[in-house]
């Protein structure tokens, strides 16, 4: 399946990362935890072999492997926003999505066995991704109005 030949969906925004600006302060991870009731962060910052801080974020893919691998319908494209959202109640904790995510951003939550998945802070009272708001370097931004 080629990304260029598929009919793209409307999406309200996507996180864009400028790795060169990242100083590895982990503020985005803290913001994510705070924004989601203290649960595990849904993003992370890792160090590459060349010692470069690299923020890894859900990309709300055009070809979302997590939705293709989900056998319960928990991972789904929200028709209103175009975001790939996750329904923990529908989730069967089979971890096929963790296996499918090519960026390796999905993790299992040890407390309840569910998945930690970016929801673009649709559940946050500020209504926009808090990792972006809290990044002191402007390394993380939302690309708005993307018709991907």
């Amino acid at each position: 399946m080629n990304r260029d030949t598929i009919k793209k969906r409307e999406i309200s925004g996507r996180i864009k990362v400028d790795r060169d600006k990242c100083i590895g302060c982990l503020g985005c991870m803290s913001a994510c935890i705070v924004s989601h009731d203290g649960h595990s962060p849904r993003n992370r910052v890792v160090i590459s072999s060349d010692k470069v801080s690299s923020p890894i974020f859900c990309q709300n893919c055009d070809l979302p492997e997590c939705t293709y691998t989900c056998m319960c319908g928990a991972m789904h494209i929200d028709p209103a926003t175009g975001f790939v959202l996750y329904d923990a109640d529908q989730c069967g904790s089979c971890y096929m999505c963790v296996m499918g995510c090519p960026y390796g951003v999905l993790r299992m939550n040890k407390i309840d066995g569910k998945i930690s998945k970016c929801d673009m802070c649709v559940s946050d009272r500020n209504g926009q991704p808090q990792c972006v708001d809290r990044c002191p370097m402007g390394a993380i931004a939302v690309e708005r109005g993307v018709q991907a």
Partner: protein
Amino acid sequence: MRHLIIGASAAGLNAAKTLRHLDPNAEITILSKDEVIHSRCVLHHYLKGKRDLAGLNFVGQDFITEQKLNWKKGVQVTKVDTGKSEVALADGSVVGYDKLLLAAGSSTAFPAGIKNLREAKSGVLGFRNINDAQAIKELAGQANVQNIVVMGAGLVGVDAVDGLLGFGKNISLVESFSHILNRQLDMRAARPYEQAFAMAGVKQYYGTKITELVLDDAGAVKQAELGSGIRIPCDLFIVTSGIKPNVGFLEGSGIALGQTGLDFDGYGKTNIENVFGAGDISGRSPIWPAAVKEGIIAAYNMVGRPLEQTDFFASKATMNFQSVATMSLGLPESPDDSYTVEVDEDQAGNYKKIIHKNGEIVGAIVQGDLSYAGILTQLIREKIDVSKIKKPLFKVDYSDFFGEFVF
């Protein structure tokens, strides 16, 4: 345009959804034996009572109306006439089409080599769809059913065992290979599952086959005989050792079959114009994500937008039984000594193994915490050279491939 889809599971419904996305005005009809939409991969949750019928629905309760689909459920297609572009149903009616998608899936294969397996009048079931699950649930709830034998310790068989634990019955699991889930796991990764099921009272017989079922006068199963000659009591015999594609209704249609089932190419095309295929009916890659993708791909090509399957990496799975999660990719064992095998384990039950050669990972097992492990799937699928990575392979992540692939 009239699109007709046979089958209402992973491939068929994803095709229907994609067709609607591509053509808001198309007439889309689905024919299925299934009367309820259900995910065949979580039937064990239904057995356990952890999930009800509605909970098995994987597309949402209002899918059919939302997507404006015409769904004829509980019907059986008996014939395809590609000359007239119509299919015949068991009730004698016919349904015409402009484009046809064959996504009829597969069924339990009841092996011919086991004496009395096909002759048994009762007590023999597969574990493939909701009808099977309902029948098993009902039988397992009866007092006169005390002994249950599951044949085949692959993912489906282990699902069945896992789902039956709470019924308080004597469960035996019989597998011809040396250990549980042998296609996914090495002996080390199999151990926690074998131990957990043993603790739960499941008798496990590995490296042996069922040779015969002993029936009573009424044809009900009473015992199962193993290759060693041992007979184990059996009131319910569940066959989970293999599947066969549902291609019987294609006989005489001129639609070509391959070695394993329906033959279709990377665009979902069969040998007949306007007839497409997707999912388990091919008998090739009987895993959920393959069926989903093939359904999507077929839909694109049905509306004349060429989209090709590029992901042929289908030997992958995750599992979560008895609170132990495992991801298995590619080969569970090294093919020969020319490969490097790296192992990492700790006291908390985390076990990782990566098999590689010349910078190419060919197999990986991750057990315990699977977090972030998806990167390994990508590295194997795309045959990405990992030799340049300076950190341990177990620590590999997207940072070393930043911006190199986009989904």
